[in-house]
């Protein structure tokens, strides 16, 4: 194998999940550049990046929960309504009983958990398909929102707005940048290097091929480069702005949930249930509990997303959360999850979520009307899933995986169709 091929394989998605991870980040960069050109350089300005994060963090937060729901073989259509319902309950409660804002946030999470328990109960313990339960939930909680709020908007207090519209404070010496954001960037760089070294260590212990050191160095250099770029953009905006608080919440959630889904027993169980629920059950997985928790978790995250949205727009209204489910579901599928469950990653969904966020943002920057925005988003979702289904029939992995294909020269000869009995998977019980 030539050196060039070696490089391509190691950099752009060989067999390891590590490489695939890297491939996804690379794809995202390509998409960012596309929008950058399309919007004449507006996309990557500090102001716009900050706006994207604070405006669309809800998509990514929802995508995290939705990924787990979809991996387990379900779907949740109610996320927008749940977000709106939570928003109005919290806003109203804080207004009526003048609750302090931290209590408001806790209340909101509790409301999310309750709604989640309600939906999870029907899905897991009664066996009603999640599609139906959450379709009902979509109506129920949208109606609930309008009932409680009298179809009117309810403003929220200044303190509460921090989680949606707040920024890291300016502290320390005047460097011309937001110092805390710089520190975060530094930590991220250290994290990336630590992870790469640790994964080399792990692979060595597993007697797997370890990529040559220079490849690791190159990989780290690229990642660090991206982080440094983003850090400088977020830290170098208008004074008083920086990485939004909602962005920090998001990063924390992403780290926690990707650790959970990838490395823990609980995470494994979600994939097992989605892959073959009967086999999972016979391996000692508590099917009902997994389904219940996955649905409940989704509603808690939806509640959080709802509160962040309300905080940003400083009031809760009857139109909050409309068609959020589309953004979230599209993000997950664009990120390579399988329609039939059992496959998908948090990082993939985040890439998908960023694609959706940038799409919304780019169309807005270009002043495209809401009619066209809906049409385009609908088509994007359809094409994403169609592409994935097509790929699966060809025995390949996912969109993100296939976006990388042109870079992989040492691919096997033309893919072969595998018979459904081999490539297919057992149907997933609801």
């Amino acid at each position: 194998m030539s050196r060039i091929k070696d490089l391509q394989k190691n950099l752009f998605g060989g067999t390891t999940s590590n490489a695939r991870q890297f491939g996804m980040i690379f794809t995202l960069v390509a998409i960012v550049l596309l929008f950058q050109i399309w919007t004449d350089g507006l996309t990557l300005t500090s102001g716009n990046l900050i706006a994207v994060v604070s405006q669309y963090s809800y998509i990514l937060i929802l995508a995290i929960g939705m990924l787990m729901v979809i991996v387990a073989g379900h779907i949740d259509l109610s996320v927008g309504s749940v977000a709106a319902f939570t928003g109005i309950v919290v806003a109203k409660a804080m207004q009526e009983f003048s609750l302090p804002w931290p209590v408001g946030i806790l209340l909101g999470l509790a409301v999310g958990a309750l709604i989640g328990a309600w939906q999870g109960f029907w899905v897991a313990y009664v066996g009603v398909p999640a599609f139906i339960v959450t379709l009902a939930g979509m109506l129920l909680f949208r109606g609930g929102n309008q009932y409680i709020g009298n179809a009117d908007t309810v403003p929220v207090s200044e303190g509460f707005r921090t989680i949606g519209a707040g920024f890291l404070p300016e502290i320390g010496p005047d460097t011309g940048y937001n110092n805390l954001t710089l520190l975060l960037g530094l930590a991220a760089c250290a994290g990336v290097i630590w992870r790469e070294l640790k994964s080399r260590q792990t692979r060595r212990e597993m007697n797997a091929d370890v990529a040559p050191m220079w490849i690791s160095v190159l990989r780290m250099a690229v990642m660090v480069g991206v982080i440094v770029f983003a850090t400088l953009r977020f830290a170098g905006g208008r004074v008083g702005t920086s990485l939004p608080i909602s962005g920090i919440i998001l990063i924390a959630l992403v780290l926690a949930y990707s650790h959970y889904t990838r490395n823990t027993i609980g995470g494994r169980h979600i994939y097992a249930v989605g892959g073959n629920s009967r086999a999972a059950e016979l391996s000692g997985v508590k099917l009902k509990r997994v389904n219940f928790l996955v649905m409940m978790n989704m509603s808690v995250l939806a509640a959080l997303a709802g509160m962040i949205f309300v905080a940003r727009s400083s009031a809760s209204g009857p139109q909050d959360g409309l068609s959020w489910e589309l953004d979230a579901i599209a993000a997950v599928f664009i990120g390579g999850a399988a329609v039939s469950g059992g496959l998908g990653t948090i990082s993939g969904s985040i890439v998908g979520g960023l694609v959706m966020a940038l799409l919304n943002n780019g169309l807005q920057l270009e002043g495209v009307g809401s009619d066209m925005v809906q049409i385009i988003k609908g088509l994007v979702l359809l094409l994403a899933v169609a592409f994935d289904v097509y790929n699966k029939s060809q025995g390949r992995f996912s969109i993100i995986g296939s976006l990388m294909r042109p870079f992989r020269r040492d691919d096997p000869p033309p893919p072969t169709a595998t018979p459904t009995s081999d490539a297919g998977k057992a149907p997933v019980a609801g």
Partner: protein
Amino acid sequence: MMSAPVLLEMRSITKTFPGVTALSDVNLEVRQGEIHAICGENGAGKSTLMKVLSGVHPHGTYTGDIVYQGEQVRFSDIRASEQAGIVIIHQELALVPGMSITENIFLGNEPRGRFGIDWKAAQRRALELMEQVGLHEDPDTLVKDIGVGKQQLVEIAKAFAKDVKLLILDEPTAALNEADSRHLLDLLRGIRRRGVTSIIISHKLNEIEAVADTITILRDGRTIESLDVHADGVNEDRIVRGMVGRELHSRFPEHTPDIGEVFFEVRDWTVRHPISADRLVCKGSSFTVRRGEIVGFAGLMGAGRTELAMSLFGRSYGVYLSGRIFKDGEEVQLRTVSDAIRHGLAYVSEDRKAIGLNLLDDIKTSMVAAKLSKVSSHGVVDPVREYRAAEEYRQSLRVKSPSVDEGVTKLSGGNQQKVVLAKWMFTDPDLLILDEPTRGIDVGAKYEIYGIIQRLADQGKGVIVISSELPELIGLCDRIYTVFEGTVTGEVSRADADPELLMKQMTSTKKTPIR
């Protein structure tokens, strides 16, 4: 026989998958009107060769030529090969359970009348076809309501409906009991008389010897030899030698059991069917297992052995009515699968694809799936420990695959079975229940699996083996229970075990006195 013209010739077929060469330079010559058997170990490439032939792996994804009826053919998919009269019946039956026999026979091939499907004509034709394959059922019966043996016949009737010239059967008798197998083999002979050629893949060498005219043996993706059964005086040992490349002197490893105390006991186990409330699938079954003992469960297909095993294993089947389980002298409640696993039970299911494995997983994930806590600390899975554990089992069970990172769908049937076995050995059980553990497994691997079972017993574990192959039970088990219609009807010690006695107890309701 040798005088018949050649119907099919496959010339230097080579087929590679990423990282695996499944077939290299394979040749196959099938004559008109014969029954041609393909033998080989698990992963030898038998199924792959048939998938190449039937267009599952389309032209262009392999190299080599296929000459059929004197012409070179290039099938792009299954439909193309069916048009040419080649019909393949995969081991996993492709029937729709909720449809009737008639509907299944004509699925995708419906006779058209003036107003859509002509069901009258279909009905009539279905009855004809069912007669031909010896299936005596109401054609409106739903496929899920008939046994596997009859389902197999429906598949063949379906092939006849397509005007088959070359019928390919991939391990057709793997899931059948003796009587159904015999019926199927008779049917194959009948088909041969009508001039239809068939290719059969099977690991049951006695059947091959009885029915085949010619045998082609594959080993590691290469053609080893082609034997003329009538001329060459072929017997099972001869076939085995071709398959494994050496003489295999015995089918069962030498073993001196070291049997201890009774440690597991079931009393009056009664379970009803999950849906029909008045149907009992287990009726007051009682049995015991001693440490270091291999206990067999013999019975006809549908006798309720699987149901018994699964209902014991955390009530995974049916509705529990009454009965008690004792382990190490104490009564235990096994309400869920995790209870059962915690109390040291393991159940290796007979249907590895539907309920044994998550087909999206790779080998290592599958192997540790039933006891993740063993490779985790504080709920976090340690990838290195996971890898090492899986690698150890891959080597000790000799799973044929380049690494444990490989997806389980890429394994051949027998190797998948080893992965399922590893998955449950990994839980370190006290009582291992194996449901048809050697189904679809080659002679060499069977020998290995018997060895593994004996080693487990020697470690003081109890092993229950459910099998439809009496010779296997007799050769392996220290004691055999017979089951008939959900009841344990008898108990036979190793010394007394012979097929006739077992058969008698497997088909009578009367409880024979124990020993």
